[in-house]
């Protein structure tokens, strides 16, 4: 019976039913609006492909008006944020490896004297180039910044020195990834992204599957403690995470020739804590979500900022402060520091302990929430 009225009535009936069901599923309904808003905010405000205010250490072996002027110029350029001074070249290397600073700017002894003599003294910029996108703009601007600063300083009797070619040599040492190979930065990061995506999602489904299939009541009627259920459900995926790690590391080594500068045990320790952090979070999600669909949505809701705010796709230092603060909460941010630190920079355990502690705290917090939310009764 194909009458237009019939088509209208039947389509309308289904349309109404779908609307009602959509409204009943509060979490899904909320996510339909929350996710686009989050995307707009993150892409619109947080992401910046021209990062500024990059933390910089200064190693100046003399303090003269000209050196101070040059440093002042760096600071006002907004690309460099002079956060500390160091007198020890070894310390500056450590600062770079741990990621505390992105640049170390060095002025040698006698810089001013030689500048005035026209000897073209050197200014050295050591850059953390593990993420080529994060450092390249600041490096490119450095010479212009210095040259313009000197143009203001060298007036009067010294005006003849006003640069045509700059009266100094700017030497840049891009560290850790001198050729600026993007893969060197992306591939180790992908390890973190892959682990986050699969592990959070799988564990988020762990409890909701029991609820959806009606086996939850049976499980609750058995004498298993919440911690036992959680551990039992999480451990199989620790194995999954371990296999994924091995696959990514082998691929990184043989397909992309990513260097491995540091100690394997530090990386594995980082992976272990990171895997636990993600599994604990996934389990927490599974105590919140009422269905597997909701578990997927929560996972996506967490995955989006993890990708965008962790420094995986876009330079972490380029983000505004509020976005960096959110990023500091995410386990992926800290894991990226560890995996890039170990593989590209050869960072040691003392450089990475902050990241390890942050991920441990996250794991403990997520576990506590999961334990509080896990209901032992059907109430």
């Amino acid at each position: 019976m194909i009458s237009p009225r019939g088509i209208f009535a039947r389509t309308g009936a289904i349309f109404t039913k779908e609307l009602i069901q959509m409204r009943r599923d509060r979490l899904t309904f909320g996510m339909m609006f929350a996710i686009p808003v989050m995307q707009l905010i993150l892409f619109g405000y947080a992401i910046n492909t021209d990062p500024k205010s990059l933390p910089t250490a200064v190693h100046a072996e003399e303090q003269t008006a000209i050196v101070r002027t040059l440093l002042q110029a760096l600071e006002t350029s907004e690309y460099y944020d002079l956060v500390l001074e160091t007198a020890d070249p070894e310390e500056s290397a450590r600062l770079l490896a741990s990621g505390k600073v992105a640049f170390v700017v060095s002025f040698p002894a006698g810089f001013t004297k030689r500048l005035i003599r026209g000897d073209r003294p050197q200014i050295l910029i050591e850059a953390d180039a593990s993420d080529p996108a994060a450092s390249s703009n600041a490096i490119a601007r450095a010479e212009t910044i210095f040259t313009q600063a000197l143009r203001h300083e060298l007036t009067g009797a010294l005006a003849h020195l006003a640069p045509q070619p700059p009266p100094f040599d700017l030497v840049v040492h891009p560290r850790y990834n001198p050729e600026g190979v993007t893969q060197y930065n992306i591939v180790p990061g992908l390890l973190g992204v892959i682990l986050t995506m699969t592990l959070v999602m799988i564990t988020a489904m762990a409890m909701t599957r029991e609820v959806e299939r009606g086996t939850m009541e049976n499980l609750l009627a058995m004498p298993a403690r919440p911690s036992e259920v959680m551990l039992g459900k999480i451990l199989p995926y620790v194995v999954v995470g371990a296999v994924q790690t091995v696959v990514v590391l082998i691929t990184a080594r043989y397909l992309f020739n990513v260097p491995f500068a540091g100690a394997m045990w530090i990386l594995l320790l980082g992976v272990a804590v990171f895997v636990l952090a993600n599994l604990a979070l996934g389990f927490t999600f599974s105590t919140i979500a009422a269905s597997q669909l909701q578990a997927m949505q929560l996972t996506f809701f967490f995955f989006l900022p993890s990708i965008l705010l962790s420094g995986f796709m876009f330079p972490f230092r380029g983000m505004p402060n509020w976005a960096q603060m959110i990023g500091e909460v995410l386990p992926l941010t800290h894991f990226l520091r560890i995996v890039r630190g170990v593989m590209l920079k050869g960072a040691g355990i003392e450089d990475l302990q902050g990241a390890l502690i942050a991920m441990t705290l996250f794991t403990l917090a997520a576990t506590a929430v999961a334990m509080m939310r896990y209901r032992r009764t059907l109430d």
Partner: protein
Amino acid sequence: MSEFAIDVRGLVKRFGEKVAVDGVDIQMPRGQVWGFLGPNGSGKTTTIRMICGLLNPTQGEGTCLGHDIVHEADQIKLATGYMTQKFSFWSDLTIRENLEFVARLYQTPSMREHVDVTLETLGLTKRQHQLAAALSGGWKQRLALAAVTMRAPKLLLLDEPTAGVDPQARRDFWDEIHRLSTDGMTVLVSTHYMDEAERCDQIVYLANGKVVTQGHVNDIIDASELITYRAEGNGIRQLASGLRGQPGVDHVAYFGAALHVSGTNRALLEQVTANREQTSIEWQEVRPTLEDTFIALMAHASDDRRPHA
């Protein structure tokens, strides 16, 4: 050790505004088989869940096998076997894997042999490697019963275990329950089937969250003071519609080709039946069945289930 397997007093369970269970007392001695009856939504499942520690009562207290139902849920879960209304074993595990999971969780000694024996008793040895999803309704119930009885719990709580199961399977199921009871197991089983109720030592009848009546089948029928007439002959259809709503007639129900007309007021009921003697219908007083009694009980129970002012 408490003399009662189940001893609960004044159990109340509210879900928001809704009162699911409204002051239930049950004192059930060990070793008996009790039937838990009542219409859908009368609070049977909620009461069972409170007894085995799956729901916290809003009010009231009690013990199950001597353990406090609120604070000692873990001990209760260890010592009782609870079979849910809906099949709640893992359909993506095989029959054997399901049984092994339960055996491991309860730390059953010599687990493999135990599972072997259970499979043998069930008659599922040949099918042990099939997924539980492949089982028919009756077999699923048997698997579920085997899984909860395998570790010999002291108390069995069965929530409508035979719903949707064919008569032969139901009979087998009850034979098994009586065998377990002979071994000393206490069994509380909720059901809608009258023949199953008649197999129980005692019946607890629940309506609107309250215990309406309790006792042996015959005692309940006697206590109801119900009088039932059986009407047979031509024109009982018209008779039925004519009788409904008459003073003294509490309910009218078909029993095959006959009609059961019941009420508690003998004088009024006799008046109604006397008026009809000129027709071709034969009247005869009969003993009310359990079903007559329950339908009368249900009709009497008020339908107001909102919280009392």
